[in-house]
């Protein structure tokens, strides 16, 4: 493959890279897609939940195809707050989600990535697996190609870096420095094999339906993060992800925590009788909007995890990657028409991104992690407080109900973390903002009458 000149080189055959390669190949561009794993997916880890809309935009009606790699369509999302021996549970189940187009699916990433990359190949992109890109080639300050770990050089008008959370490429080009430990989360995960019937009985599912559970509290041992349990066709995905900077402080071993989650009295019943078939780990970019690098430079674009495109609060990331990959591809198609791959033309990518949900969502959630960090005592003690309160509320012990209510109030009012959180938020800015929104709501309400 040496000495070739392509229209575009896409590095990484994950959701962002395949999407970019797919749209460019469809437009007739000469595209090469490089993947460092021996096959697409070999290096990739995700929960995994995949949202329908963004893939449907690229491959309309994909779920109807007999070779669709979707595991289960999600009809129920549960949200649990755990103490050491209890769980406050909330959830949402909808029959509307049982109808097509489904809201989202559970997937197994290696199956998905192989299937998805084949779509790009069918459209005409050339996929080379087992190729690690080690260097970006520059000429007169602009990116002109890449060099592989085996020393091969490939040239193109544009390089799209979709090389994931550890984007060596974006760093080499100088768009960003190494991320810091507080800009990423470390996730560990296991795949647990379980017969289909058992999964469907245990989670009350029928006709390929699936459940997802996100769990907060005790399962992260005081660190910021959450655990998850997702149902696949014949397996469960269970995992836990916490901020790397919190791991640094707590010195908890991720695999010990994984085992703790699996043995939690509320959880162990759900996974009982299953068999571990894989253990995995990956970083999740969680710096969000504030950590995003510039998305382009001369002859170079970045998309997906490589550019921090994850909304951790809504477990969205692979959908962001697909939309971003698509927009990056479309930008290159227009740059090709214009015959100009300078940052001036490629800035169109940023403009396109601004008009989508991606940058809006990332912008809107940019302070979420910081505010959680500000209230770590509450994040740590809140789950116990909630579970204890619910215990007192529901437990019957022969005492008058008022005793239980008093206990609940006492515990809440005397809790230092609650005090601290209230004091921290009692500032002029928050009071003014509160009044402002209060007035706005009042006006709307009055106006509507």
């Amino acid at each position, binding site marked *: 493959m040496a000495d070739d000149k392509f229209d575009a080189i896409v590095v990484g055959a994950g959701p962002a890279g395949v999407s970019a390669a797919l749209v460019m190949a469809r437009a007739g561009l000469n595209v090469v897609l490089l993947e*460092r794993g021996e096959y697409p997916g070999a*290096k990739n880890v995700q929960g995994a939940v995949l949202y329908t809309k963004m893939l449907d935009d690229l491959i309309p009606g994909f779920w109807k195809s007999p070779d669709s790699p979707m595991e289960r369509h999600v009809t129920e999302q549960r949200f649990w707050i755990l103490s050491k021996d209890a769980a406050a549970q909330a959830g949402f189940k909808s029959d509307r989600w049982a109808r097509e187009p489904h809201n989202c699916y559970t997937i197994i990433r290696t199956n998905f990535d192989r299937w998805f990359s084949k779509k790009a190949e069918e459209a005409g992109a050339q996929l080379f697996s087992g190729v690690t890109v080690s260097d970006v080639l520059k000429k007169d300050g602009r990116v002109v190609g890449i060099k592989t770990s085996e020393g091969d050089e490939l040239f193109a008008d544009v390089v799209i870096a979709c090389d994931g959370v550890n984007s060596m490429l974006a760093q080499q080009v100088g768009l960003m420095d*190494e991320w810091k430990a507080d800009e990423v989360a470390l996730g560990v995960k296991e795949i647990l094999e379980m017969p289909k019937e058992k999964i469907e009985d245990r989670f009350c599912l029928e006709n390929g339906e699936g459940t997802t559970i996100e769990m907060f509290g005790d399962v992260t041992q005081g660190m910021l993060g959450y655990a998850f349990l997702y149902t696949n066709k014949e397996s469960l995905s269970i995992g836990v992800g916490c901020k790397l900077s919190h791991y640094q402080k707590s*010195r908890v071993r991720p695999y010990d925590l*994984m085992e703790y989650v699996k043995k939690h009295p509320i959880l162990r019943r759900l996974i009982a009788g299953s068999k571990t078939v894989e*253990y995995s780990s990956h970083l999740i970019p969680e710096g969000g909007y504030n950590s995003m690098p510039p998305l382009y430079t001369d002859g170079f674009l970045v998309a997906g995890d490589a550019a921090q495109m994850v909304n951790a609060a809504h477990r969205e990331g692979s959908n962001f990657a697909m939309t971003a990959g698509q927009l990056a591809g479309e930008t290159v198609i227009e740059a090709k028409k214009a015959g100009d791959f300078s940052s001036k033309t490629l800035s169109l990518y940023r403009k396109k991104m601004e008009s989508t949900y991606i940058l809006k969502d990332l912008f809107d959630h940019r302070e979420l992690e910081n505010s959680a960090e500000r209230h770590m005592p509450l994040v740590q003690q809140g789950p116990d407080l909630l579970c204890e309160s619910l215990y007192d509320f529901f437990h019957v012990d022969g005492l008058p109900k008022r005793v239980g209510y008093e206990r609940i109030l006492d515990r809440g009012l005397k809790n230092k973390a609650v005090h601290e959180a209230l004091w921290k938020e009692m500032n002029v800015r928050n009071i003014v903002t509160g009044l402002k929104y209060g007035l706005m709501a009042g006006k709307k309400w009055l106006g509507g009458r």
Partner: protein
Amino acid sequence: MTTELPKVNIDEKLGYLTYKADHQTHITIEKPEVCSEQCREKPCASICPAQVYRWEEAQNKVIVSFENCIECGACRMLCPFFNIKCHWPRGGFGVQYRYG
């Protein structure tokens, strides 16, 4: 938080994985003396999810079992002295997830 966590034998977990082994390492400790002289906490040894890094008191250095690496990349940000250089394994080598 003082909960006692279960102690896991990581080799058992890594036993579920398939690797394509490379003879050459993709991980280097830039200055071994920084580990022995300056780094007290050694977060790499506790937090690496594949226990690639082990502190060997007798040898007074960090032993790197690069062949166990599951390529999360955390070590680069984890090291307080940015003393770990972790590149990708050469094309096709390293961990091969079957599920991911």
